[in-house]
């Protein structure tokens, strides 16, 4: 029997396993601190909740060579200006409603979830709401009575009635509007927003 060379020995690989694991985890922790700092609500990548008072669009940026959220001037939600706290409260209600109603097991949010229903990442900007003026009302009506207001585009798939109250529906709309303002590194690509025809 020949001696096991060092590179094939048990103690060598034990050390490698420990150091590689510890090293990778340390890098992950450092990057986590940085990422959480850069993605605080109110930062550059994830806007403050009061962005729901503004016009949000999503357009191709030639310099960056990717699609970027474009935050414009005032465009009130439900005809009202929300303070930072009020906006956070409403978005929180909306986010909790999306969890309480289990939206993610049909829809995707930021591309994560199930694939039975459309992605909600930029749902606020979708042309499916027909016009900018009709959008809010359409969304509220749809959320509160999805069966009667369903447009299934020939799939036959309808959202079930989830007993969403009007207040919760407003929260969901605010949440979707806020989510559409997040810089998602160009995802989804080639998206045509509801504002496209105005330009």
């Amino acid at each position, binding site marked *: 029997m020949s001696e096991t060379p060092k590179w094939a020995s048990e103690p060598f690989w034990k050390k490698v396993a420990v150091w590689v694991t510890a090293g990778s985890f340390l890098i992950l922790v450092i990057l986590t601190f940085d990422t959480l700092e850069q*993605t605080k609500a109110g930062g550059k990548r*994830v806007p403050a909740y009061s962005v729901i008072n503004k016009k949000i669009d999503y357009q191709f940026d030639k310099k960056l060579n990717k699609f970027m959220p474009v935050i414009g001037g005032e465009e009130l939600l439900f005809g009202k200006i929300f303070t930072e706290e009020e906006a956070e409260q409403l978005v929180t209600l909306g986010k909790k409603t999306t*969890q309480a109603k289990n939206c993610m097991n049909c829809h995707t*949010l930021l*591309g994560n*979830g199930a694939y039975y229903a459309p992605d909600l990442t930029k749902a606020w900007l979708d042309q499916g709401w027909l016009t900018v003026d009709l959008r809010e009302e359409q969304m509220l009506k749809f959320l509160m009575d999805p069966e009667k207001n369903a447009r299934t*585009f020939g799939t036959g798939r309808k959202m079930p009635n989830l007993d969403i109250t009007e207040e919760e529906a407003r929260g969901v709309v605010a949440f979707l509007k806020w989510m559409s303002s997040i810089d998602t*590194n160009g995802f989804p690509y080639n998206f045509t927003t509801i504002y496209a025809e105005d330009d």
Partner: protein
Amino acid sequence: MTNMSANPETVTENTSALKNKLQALHSWAAVDDSTLNDGQKLAVKYFMGAVILFIFQILFGLLAAAQFIAPNFLYEILDFSVNRMVHINAMILWMLYGFIGCTYWLLEDESGTEIAGLKFGVLGFWVLSAAITVVVLVYLLVQTGAGNDTTLWLINEGREYIEAPRWADIGIVIVMLIFFYNVVMTFSKGKWSGIAGVLTLDLVALAGLYLAGMFYMTNITHEQFWWWWVIHLWVEATWEVLVGVIMAWSLMTILGVSRKIVTTWLYIEVALMFGSGILGLGHHYFWIGTPEYWLTIGGFFSALEPIPLVAMVVHAVYDSGERGFKNMNHPAMAWLIAHAFGNFFGAGVWGFMHTLPQINLYTHGTQWSASHGHLAFFGAYATINIAFFYIAIQHWRGNVWMGADSPNSWRWKWALALLNIGVLGMTIALLIAGYEQSFIERAIGGSTWGGYFAAQTHPSFMTAMHWRMLFGWVTATGLGLLVWDLLTIGKGETRKAEVITHSE
């Protein structure tokens, strides 16, 4: 276990009735408890729980798949969201049950001593099973709640894979701590080995990571960031290492591979698995609002992720080939080989195919992910758990011969074939659907709702969904056969299994 609030007398009555039924089942199945040590007795409880949850997984998977074809089926009774949630939750839980069972199974043999804290372990099993029953009943009967914290605490947290309400989260953590206590105290009392060390550290990580998913955050970028700490770091790091441990132990047991070889391989696999898997987490951080450096880090490390899986295939095939595929448990060995290849193709190749950012921009959030998910979870985790069920049942029937020439061996062979063909068929069907979706919805349709529905109604998508349904039935048939086989294999067999000598 649903009447937890009933008075103590009924509980005692129910328990003894349950015990009688279990006894009847034991004698019918010709299993012999005296062949098991205490850890193994606890393990078979988990294995039975795992098989029951496996059946639930497939059942609700069939319902969800049917709704793609007939959307009105069970509309507003059991909607897709409910079926799909039960489908994926049952999958995670049966795999966890399987892993916990495997650990309890090897604990006494590996440590050379009796299990520590057995009472707590048994209590933990019943608490966990009761909790799961309640959670599932709430999922099915209550389904959703108002948009407030009460719902998140009592009904559903609404986040894919970790939907369990918060009270159950806390319960799961307590049960995991008991499990961890059993493992560590047993090894401390007996002897430590390389396998024991890797297992213990892996369980620390597994239990610790679950905590990252227990908080509510309005900032969805932060929330999904931590959510992936649980999902990815479980499935693509700690679970992979756990199956490495189980594989190492299984190869020693049924092939007689030397401990030195499996331990060295195990360390190599840990180094590669954590070295690629921890930062491979970045492939989930491309599009959720996180900084751009994740595109590079995630792309690079996730491309490395298949490498440890190649090591695993080499390991398994080399070890069995070296012994001329001579082993004492043919079905278990067949499933271990299925695991080696399934893990490599499902987790490795299928994962790699769509995690480069340039590709993922179009495939993220399409049936592509479902295709990868099906083959990866089956190939990496279902297979090795099934292999272990066969190791356990052989022992439980008094270590009888279980070979390719046994009576009724067609059952395990057909179960093996049907389950693998079924899952592979679903994977290919979903892959076709995913390609079509990436092309029509994403590339052409710009990911609008119009683009989404154009893809969902396209004939090639609908055809793929029909194929998926068909192969779902094949899978279900395979599962039926598997359960039948596990209940009967080796029954009445008088030949003893060959004794495998360790070449230490």
